[in-house]
């Protein structure tokens, strides 16, 4: 059997297992089965994860691996030796470095790390308890520093759950050095220390264990026998938290939530019950449940998810309902709407085209099982969120869904719907404009260019990891690498913001110029698809040419590496006046332009401003 056949079998094996486990809760026995099968096919993993800490992490990583698997992400896991999290990252030839993780989960037990914080209660002097807490924080900080210097892996740091039975008893909340005060202080410090560092994220284990119940999660026999920190519900909750974070690292969040109206956003059917017969108001139990759901939809929107409506109704009825009822959601919260009698799969496909997103970025939520099944059959790429029978459970069903999980929210996320809606308006304008040139002029595009610094890094990392179409070399740089480029004199790392008469598109592009070579080289350039087709790329190239030639360079080089998705960028260098100097059979090419040919090319960008360095 050839290697390719073995891979195929492995992939088929995992697909069959995933299919079998679909749509039912995970049981203890499933966890073990999944763990074994996934471990046997390590080469198929989407993400390689190392688990380090001072308690027994195997149950946690098995739980997380199994859960992530049922949600479509295969993890390869490596458990570090007990209480050797420092040694693991410090040893350059150790098993951790050989494993080459994409992510490292660090989970530390206060019982092991600072026993006098957990035990002894009032008998431990106040000063000692404070010192213990400072020591814990310092320990974690030093570990993060050590790990950051030696690995590009994303670091997920578990924070500390409150003790189920604090040593000071009832007096705990009143004491400045009680478990509540010190654990909360520690967790606040952990949260703020790496807030702007895209390589480090905090896992809120404290909240996870609290939700599961700290008493139910603590099994002293398991701890004393094997240093297993959480059992039962606590293990499940901690495993779910880790799995969600790892899935969020392994794949992009869904971009768009399409909603039905009748019995989804409000109770009743507007065409039959009339606007006044709808249940969506305070004072009525059903009405309040639908209001709660609308608020949950707003929460999801605020995370950067674009909303759309797909409803079989008369448009006038729906407009009247949104106009007359005092609803949390308004019609202009939706970037695209299809309110007519067309089949929903047709409308969903149209909306995806209109918003210029793939069907695999779409989640569709409906209360009607028949509509849900239709979409599953007709558009298998679309994720269907079938709402439960009871409207009281709608909001939780939406907030519990993993589809929209992101480890970091950027300021871009809060304005996504507006940005997409503006794009739809631009498209309408394009249809009425006489020719392309006058259309582009009418947009009134203005750009701002700046050097990458700490504040923009999370967004820049998002751009490098998510942009597929206009991406010249598809280098998926890690946050650590991007941070290094931003601080290095050998590289010039810049970004571009775009706005026009219709609104702000935000930070939409970035490029890396390599300077420590004979001829400056464009290493990579990414431009979000929402900024394409308006000559922004020409403005970028003019800017780069101007910079390097003004500094005395004889020529500028650029690389293009083809992928299945980046055809829109294939002719970029030629269009900017570069000559292909080298091209291999796969279409990878190096292009060059001499200073003598380096004048700016015409483009329809009205205004370019350069952001001064702070």
């Amino acid at each position: 059997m050839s290697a390719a056949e073995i891979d195929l079998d492995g992939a088929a094996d995992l697909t069959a297992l995933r299919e079998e486990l679909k749509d039912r809760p995970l049981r203890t026995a499933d966890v073990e089965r999944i763990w074994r099968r996934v471990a046997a096919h390590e080469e198929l993993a989407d993400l390689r994860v190392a688990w380090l800490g001072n308690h027994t992490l195997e149950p946690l990583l098995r739980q997380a691996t199994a859960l992530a698997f049922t949600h479509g992400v295969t993890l390869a896991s490596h458990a570090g030796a007990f209480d050797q999290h420092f040694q693991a990252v410090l040893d350059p030839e150790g098993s951790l470095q050989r494993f080459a993780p994409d992510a490292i989960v660090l989970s530390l037990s206060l019982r092991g790390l600072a026993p006098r914080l957990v035990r002894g209660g009032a008998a431990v002097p106040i000063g000692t308890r404070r010192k213990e807490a400072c020591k814990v924080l310092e320990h974690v900080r030093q570990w993060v520093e050590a790990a950051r210097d030696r690995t590009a892996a994303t670091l997920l740091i578990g924070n500390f759950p409150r003790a189920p039975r604090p040593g000071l008893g009832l007096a705990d909340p009143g004491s400045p050095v009680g478990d509540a005060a010190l654990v909360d202080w520690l967790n606040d410090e952990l949260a703020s220390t790496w807030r702007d560092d895209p390589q480090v994220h905090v896992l809120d284990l404290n909240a996870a264990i609290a939700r599961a119940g700290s008493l139910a999660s603590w099994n002293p026999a398991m701890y004393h026998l094997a240093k297993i920190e959480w059992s039962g519900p606590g293990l499940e909750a901690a495993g779910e938290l880790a799995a969600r974070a790892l899935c969020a690292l392994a794949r992009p969040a869904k971009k768009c939530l399409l909603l039905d109206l009748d019995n989804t956003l409000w109770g009743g059917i507007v065409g039959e019950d009339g606007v006044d017969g709808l249940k969506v108001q305070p004072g009525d139990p059903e009405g309040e449940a639908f209001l709660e759901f609308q608020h949950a939809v707003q929460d999801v929107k605020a995370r950067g998810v674009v909303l759309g409506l797909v409803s079989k109704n008369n448009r006038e009825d729906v407009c009247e309902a949104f106009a007359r009822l005092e609803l949390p959601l308004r019609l202009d919260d939706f970037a695209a709407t299809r309110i007519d009698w067309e089949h929903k799969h047709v409308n969903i496909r149209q909306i995806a085209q209109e918003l210029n997103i793939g069907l695999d970025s779409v989640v569709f939520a409906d209360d009607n099982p028949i509509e849900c099944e239709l979409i599953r059959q007709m558009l298998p790429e679309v994720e269907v969120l079938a709402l439960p029978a009871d409207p009281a459970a709608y909001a939780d069903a939406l907030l519990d869904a993993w589809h929209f999980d992101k480890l970091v929210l950027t300021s871009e996320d809060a304005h996504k719907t507006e940005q997409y809606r503006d794009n739809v308006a631009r498209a309408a304008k394009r249809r009425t404009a006489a020719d392309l040139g006058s259309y582009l002029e009418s947009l009134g595009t203005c750009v701002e260019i700046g050097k990458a610094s700490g504040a923009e890094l999370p967004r820049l990392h998002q751009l490098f990891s998510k942009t597929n179409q206009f991406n010249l070399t598809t280098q998926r740089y890690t946050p650590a690498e991007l941070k290094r480029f931003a601080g290095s004199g050998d590289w010039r790392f810049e970004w571009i913001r775009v706005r026009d008469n219709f609104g702000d598109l935000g930070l939409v592009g970035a490029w890396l110029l390599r300077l420590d070579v004979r001829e400056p080289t464009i290493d990579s350039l990414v431009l979000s698809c929402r900024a394409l087709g308006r000559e922004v790329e020409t403005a970028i190239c003019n800017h780069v040419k101007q910079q390097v030639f003004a500094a005395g360079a004889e020529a500028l080089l650029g690389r293009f590496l083809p992928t299945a998705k980046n055809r829109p960028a294939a002719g970029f260098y030629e269009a900017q006046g570069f000559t292909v100097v080298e091209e291999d059979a796969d279409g990878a090419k190096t292009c060059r332009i001499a200073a003598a040919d380096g004048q700016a090319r015409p483009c329809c960008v009205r205004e370019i401003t350069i952001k001064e360095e702070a």
Partner: protein
Amino acid sequence: MNPELRSVFADTLGLDPDAVTADTSRRSEPAWDSLNHLRLVTAVEETFGIKLSMAEIQAITTAGELETMIDGHDKI
């Protein structure tokens, strides 16, 4: 042997249910390592609604002993 216990063993240790007997022991079954021992205990506690003491957990060496222990326990 209790069929429920047999399937707990098979699931947790990844064994063929027919291969699980009262004589299946920690000494002879390589999959029954210390971590799986605790997973087995958790699965048994979950399945039979009982709580084993630390001493009991440490004392178990064969499937038969565990079965006797379960029979002697009151449900919680």
